[in-house]
């Protein structure tokens, strides 16, 4: 799946003087506060960090509060979905009008019915809701399926994805992997 990247960041963490006793812990707290929020500087959501090297030198900032800045280099794992990227997520809910999935366990993704290609037909049997492909009966999307979809847009504030299943290479990830010949052929025509 796309949308994940690792990068090395040179950071300066500003700490309150009360944290001077144990700056390491304070640095980790600062870094943790970035987790699961969209960061404009990194252009992505910080998923994980490795604090790496901290410099031993700290610079006291002039100003009313004598905050001090510690330089460090950290490796950071970012999630930055962009339109047309191919993402995967677990389907959590199916309605006649939409498919809902969760990507990486935290980001909600929705595929509205106009973004579901005509091939898929909604069926509800014994309370179990499922989208079945008309051309390949075994290609099904139900709750629990790992869904591969194309990103339409990304709401940076609440990390909400809007996706589409219009492209042939989207759908149930497992079926797509097993039957690559079938959908790639369809692509050719």
């Amino acid at each position: 799946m796309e949308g994940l990247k690792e990068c090395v960041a040179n950071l300066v963490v500003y700490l309150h003087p009360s944290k001077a006793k144990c700056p390491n812990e304070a640095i980790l707290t600062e870094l943790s506060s970035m987790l699961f929020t969209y960061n404009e500087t990194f252009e992505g959501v910080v998923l994980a960090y490795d604090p790496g090297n901290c410099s031993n030198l700290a610079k006291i900032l002039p100003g009313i509060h004598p905050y001090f800045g510690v330089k460090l280099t950290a490796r950071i794992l970012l999630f930055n979905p962009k339109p047309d990227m191919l993402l995967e997520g677990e389907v959590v809910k199916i309605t006649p009008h939409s498919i809902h999935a969760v990507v990486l366990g935290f980001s909600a993704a929705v595929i509205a019915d106009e973004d579901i290609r005509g091939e898929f037909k909604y069926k509800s049997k014994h309370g179990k809701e499922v989208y079945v492909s008309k051309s390949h009966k075994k290609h099904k999307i139900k709750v629990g399926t790992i869904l591969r979809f194309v990103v339409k847009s990304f709401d940076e504030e609440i990390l909400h994805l809007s996706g589409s299943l219009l492209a042939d290479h989207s759908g149930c990830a497992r079926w797509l992997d097993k039957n690559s010949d079938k959908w790639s052929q369809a692509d050719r025509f």
Partner: protein
Amino acid sequence: MGAPEMDEPSFSGSELDYHVKNALKAVIQGDCDFYNQLVAVIHHKERLVAEEVALLVTCLKAVAGAVSCIHIIHHRSLLAGIFGMSLWDYGTDVMDALVELLISLASSSGEFVDLCLETLVINFIPPSSAPYFMELLKQPRGLSKKNQVLDRVHATLGDIRNVVPLSPLRLEKIVRDRMPNIYTKEPFIVMYVENMLRLESGSMGELVGSTMLVSIVDRLIELDVELAWDEILQDDFHKGIFDMELEDLEGHVDYTEQDCNEHTRDALIQRFFSGNLVAEKLDSLMVLTFEHLKSCSESGRLVQVFETLLQSFQKTILTAYKSKFAQFIVFYGCSLDPENCGKMFGSLLVNIFVSSLNPEWRMSAVAYLASYLARSKFVSIPFVATMLDSMVNWCFLYSKNQKQGGDINPKAHKVFYAGCQATMYVLCFRMRQMLALPQLNSQLLFMRIEDILGHSLKPLQVCLPSIVDEFMRLAKANHVFSTPPSFSNDCPLESEHSRAFGGTERLDMFFPFDPCLLRKCDRFIRPNYVYWSMVRSTYDDDDDEEEEGSSDEDDAEVNIENGMSIPHDGSGRSYDEGNFDVDEFNYSLDKMSITPRDSSHKFGGRIQRHMQMPSRIRPSMSPESL
């Protein structure tokens, strides 16, 4: 306007969906006819007849099917209608359709998540525009309505969370922000807190639970500080409630007994509570919290909840100036699991006392610790000894580091004096029990208590005289701890030093777990609470030989049962047994506190022996006191 007529009622479900979608799309092009009808249906609230209800349900379902076409700007009036709907106004059919729509909206786009959550949170309490709900809630019909609404609200929050995993993050902020302030009417704030606690114990508890608890504790403290001592100490209250328990021995109790007989006391409490909405709110919220803690204990997750509670205690309760009742939630938590929670609490307080940076917090912490160790029936005596040992050790090291010959300085050494006072206070309550166990007996004797009390910083002259006095009596009676030569019983009890020690804030007079005055809370606290009378009855002084009270343990048993009965005072037992609980409680109100009234105005008189609660906080150097 009446029910707007929807054309062609013969639409099938999917056709209607299609039409609604088209209508929503048409708005963007400027064609609002059908859309306006839809909005009118949703806005129509009063007295819906069956067909109108059916129409509303159908429309809500159709909109739920078309959420992907809803635009936050173009369809503002529709959204305003939906988010303005209150579950309380409708029957179950509409409720179901509405929550279904909210789930669809929240999962369709990030920008609706907050609005949907907010709508649900608003439904935690009935709309304030319809006050009749509160009356209705007293009837079974109202209660079933409440259950219908709240079950749906909480189930929906869970459903939204399943689809939008980050929604709890938003939810906790919304719940916190929308929490009614302390001036809200009691039933509303109580109901809101009920919902918060339900969230805490629900599936989202792990994520939002701690925020809920912390917010509740914050509210408790806000209510608590709203209750001024002045307010309680009105008129006749001066006589009874805040008389110091320790002073009962001096026969003072007869005086209060006569003056405040049962009847008037009842009336007084009635007046205090009936006029005091804040106290009632605090009482109800505390009871809710107690019940919640109890249910947590039954489901085995008390320790986890208690940890949050402790953090919150450390931040808000401990740092609040002389919190009155809110701290009892921690007390109750400890009583439910003395082995884990009780010990955690004790250790936390010792840590703060020994190593915190802020002297006020340290004094406060040691006051909490002393009061906790003294008042909790469930704390094991060896644990008391361990805690005491830590306190004494710190005080000893402190005094050792001071130059010998250093003089009394109540301000500079206030933490030390607070530690000494706490030690004596705990011993007043626990010395007997400790001496009865051989192992602890020797441990107690090995503590450097004599060293610190005899130090040239002279804690005995600085600490609260009533405690010193009581402690010395006990020590003498049990033949432990020799009195330092510098101290004699005849010296004036309250010296300028002892007033200076507490400073203007008189933290020296702070005993957080003095009997709880709140009526409904009492039944939770009482079974685990040590009243002074229970302790005092376990010994009898030689001085009191003329009194009929006896000192043996059997008597103590009886007195423990009777709670507040006073062994050497006939009236203490003369209560009607049938009304025992009420009487007992009322009586205990009389014995509220060792936390005494401002005694400065009585300085110098013999009456000095009854310490009183500072009804007004005044500087120790006020002219009266000089």
